[in-house]
């Protein structure tokens, strides 16, 4: 077995979605670690935004449970309002955003609001937060999900965060001039939109997984992207950045 945890691999796969110089919404938990790894490796000038009204160059020193925790305030590059930061999204100035959710469908639409009919839901999830804003207005959206059949579904019950909607040009016709899913990073695989419909395809499977296992845990008939292969293992530099700087406590090991 490889000498890294699945979560470490997910963090590093997420980090690779951030390019140098980009402005990204990094949300909470796993993407924060990914932002730290990216800054220390291939993306030293990336900037992280938080919808609470913060921008950071270097990731916070100290554990964050929420975006508003004191370590995220100290040494921030900008402390301001929600509109100032989310407005950058609407102005087309944010390259990528990282979001999660309760369920995702084959067009990358995400539900974090209601399971069942929204008028009489069987489960009430917490809601959008900034996820809908990021999904509609960042240049690329990257979703982080646990790969379970009940979470990767043919069609979500409620679209909190639009992906490619019904595929094809339906996203553009809804008035979303740019953006959409770029990747879905799960604990088993990386999916990416492919083809004219922008349906999520299997782009790579993590070490220890295989195509059948991934397809077996997906709620729709997952197609394989040309050139799909095993997810590239973390490089020594990536693991070093993660373990020696970003996650010295070993939270993600």
């Amino acid at each position, binding site marked *: 077995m490889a000498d890294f945890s699945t979560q470490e691999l997910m963090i590093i796969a997420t980090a690779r979605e951030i390019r140098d110089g980009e402005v990204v919404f990094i949300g909470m938990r796993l993407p924060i670690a990914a932002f730290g790894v990216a800054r220390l490796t291939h993306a030293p000038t990336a900037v992280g935004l938080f919808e609470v*009204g913060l921008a950071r160059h270097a990731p916070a020193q100290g554990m964050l*449970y929420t975006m508003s925790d004191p370590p995220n305030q100290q040494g921030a590059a900008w402390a301001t309002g929600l509109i100032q930061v989310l407005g950058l999204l609407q102005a087309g100035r944010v390259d990528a955003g990282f979001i999660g959710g309760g369920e995702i469908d084959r067009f990358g639409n995400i539900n974090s*609001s209601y399971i069942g009919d929204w008028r009489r839901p*069987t489960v009430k999830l917490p809601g959008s937060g900034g996820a*809908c804003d990021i*999904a509609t207005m960042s240049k690329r959206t990257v979703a982080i999900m646990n790969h379970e059949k009940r979470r990767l579904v043919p069609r979500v019950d409620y679209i909190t965060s639009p992906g490619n909607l019904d595929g094809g040009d339906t996203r553009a016709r809804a*008035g979303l001039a740019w953006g959409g899913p770029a990747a879905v990073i799960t604990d088993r695989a990386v999916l990416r939109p492919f083809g004219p419909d922008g349906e999520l395809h299997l782009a790579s499977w993590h070490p220890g997984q295989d195509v059948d296992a991934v397809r077996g845990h997906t709620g729709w008939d997952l197609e394989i992207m040309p050139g799909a292969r095993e997810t590239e293992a973390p490089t020594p530099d990536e693991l070093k950045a993660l373990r020696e700087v970003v996650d010295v406590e070993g939270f993600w090991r």
Partner: protein
Amino acid sequence: MRDKLASLSQAVGELIRDGDSVVLGACLEQNIAFAVVHELIRQGRRDLELVAPISDGATDMLIGAGCVGAVAGAWVGNVSGGLGHNYRRAVEQGLPVPLRINDYSNFSLGMALFAGAYGMPYVPVRSVLGSDIAVSNPAFRRAEDPFGGGPVLLVPAMEPAVAVLPVQRSDRFGNCHHWGNAGVAQEAALAAERVLVVADEIVEPEVIASDPNRVLFPAFRVSAVVHEPAAVHPSPMTGRWKRDTDFYQDYHRRSRDPDDFRAWLREWVLDLSDHAAYRAKLGQRLEALRIRGEALSAPANFAAE
């Protein structure tokens, strides 16, 4: 200037009435006025409409206590724990009372308050388009940009009855300083009919006047100033209080079952007469959350000569 200092029970009693829309958690996960939440529960307020982009735990608590008739928000839950058990029970089972939900995203909620603050009847946004938020919240309206830019979503202005806004320091007249991320605090203060400032510290007017740029909203918009240290516990306040994650997790565990929640509510709210009693009950635990280090802002000179 009018002296606006009031006790917590007096200010809550006078400014927040049954049926009012109340902005809570304007700074998202920091500066949540739990002291005001507790007092609303003790005073048995009913049918409130809570307005909050994210109000980590506080909304859930008020819902469980039966104080809430509607929520206009983007995210309701417990950041440390996940789902809000009382919120789920209210929406899924109508317990303890049914709850109306007005779905927003963070940005559309912020822009609704912006419109309210600055007297715009509505604002056009690009967000929410294509989502079911535009379906489940009937307040939104889809339109075409008359300048040829394609579809837009029109978000009508929101003018809440009350904004509850914790700050690090205020004078007796409502001149106050706020720092760290501001969320929608400025827009809420300017949009609301009444503003309740909850100050961690009361200072002389000269302290506030020394830095007018750290004022988010003018004193003439402030209805009352309440002085309660750590009013935001268990949420953090920049430069003052760390987050009490264990407290959130304990609340999450003990709110899973309705009977356990009622026991929790008695222990931490109903059986305590005021916020001083709450602080006393926290005791050393609260002291451990106090930020003792110093990382001070570089001074800015405002001298005229």
